[in-house]
């Protein structure tokens, strides 16, 4: 009886040992990730914002009004395919219809 209790205690101790090892491994992993995050190269948000603003203002955008300047944005004079398709459909309709005098 006494031997059995001793065995159980030993098993419990070994289990605790294993759990603690896993815990330590996890915390160490987390620490390493945090160290990597701290060491990561960053720029200040003001610099980043400047780059974003420059990129946005230098990129043409077919959804913005056509014109020489639109608040710094170079709008392009690309043909609008939706408008083209609509005009073509109107023309097609015109030729399909007959006029009754």
């Amino acid at each position, binding site marked *: 009886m006494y031997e059995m209790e001793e065995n159980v205690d030993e098993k419990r101790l070994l289990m605790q040992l294993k759990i603690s090892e896993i815990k330590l491994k996890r*915390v160490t992993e987390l620490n390493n990730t*945090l160290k990597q995050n701290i060491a990561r190269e960053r720029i200040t948000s003001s610099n980043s914002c400047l780059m974003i603003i420059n990129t946005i203002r230098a990129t043409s955008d077919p959804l913005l009004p056509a014109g020489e300047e639109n608040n710094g944005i170079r709008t392009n004079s690309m043909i609008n395919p939706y408008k083209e398709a609509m005009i073509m459909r109107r023309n097609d309709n015109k030729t399909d219809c007959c006029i009754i005098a």
Partner: protein
Amino acid sequence: MSDPQEQLKKLQVQITQSKRETKQLYFHLDRVLKSCQDSNLTTVYRQQVPNGPPVRFDNFGLYHVLRGHFNKISQIRWGPADSYYLLSSSQDGFMIIWDTLTGYKVKAIPLDVQWVLSCAYSPDGQLLASGGLSNRATIYNFESGTSKAVLKGHTCYISDMGFLGPDKLITASGDMNCILWDVNRAIQVNTYVDHLGDVLSLAVDQKNGRFVSGASDGYAKVWDCRSACPVYQYVVGHNEVTVVEQLTDHLFAAGTDDGTIKLFDMRSDGEINRYNPPFLASTVPPALHQNHQGAADDSSVTSIAFSSSGRLMFATYADKGCVVWDLLANQLLGELSGHSNQVNQVRVNGQGNGVATSSWDSTIKIWGAT
């Protein structure tokens, strides 16, 4: 071998020391991040262009109203960048492919499960995908319209999906995981486990092999597809992150269920702008909205899209419809109104010259510059 009791004591001391170090590291990281957050996008823009008028938004028109579905439309996706095809999935049990230039249907594909929440269009235009409450994703051939593969692996609903390449699909699910699939072999390539709530939204960056996920735990995480751990993670707020959308390689927006949109930048590793829920005269009180039109009683952001330059940000809100923001000036420019029920999706096409909005009124509207 040393006594296990002693070993245990030693380990516990090590754990305590490591935990102390973790606390210090968190504190240090927080300080580093705060030191980088020295301004926001609108402030910098105002310094650059002090008296600049807001961007003009008077040239927008409706080209088509696409009718053909008989129930709520769950999602819409544009086809390959050079096409004007649009894919829509609806709870009437069909996915329809539309030619948005003519406004006609190209194909209607009957779904194996009616309860679809999400759909995707492969970048080469050959494959389509759908997924929803059945917990599985189905891949369809565009040409034949028949199913090619069924992807089983999620244990909860599929909320969102997107193709990473012609044969790679990423799905997000209510089981808190995202999965990368090889579509040809119908097998899981990688599983992404880190969220502590339902993953509600995905934005796939095909060029860099990355994706952003937003979940109900309030986090948005950026993943490299090859790695099982997130590369970046941001606390968006205490609320659910209902939608994420990427603008550039380093910039993405996350919308929450309280109606706030936040812009995150990976180079400065933090939030760079915030767009509060807009107040519109046309906003219908939630209770009235729910009673009369069956729409949601919340003000959550349901979808975000950017124009090709990024200057315009289109956002749909559960109670406000589709709204257009000037991204830099943080000003409301207008609305894309006309739907008779909740507008749940907005998407800009690959060429940047067409915008599609879909609604629970079972129609899709195609907008463009006039």
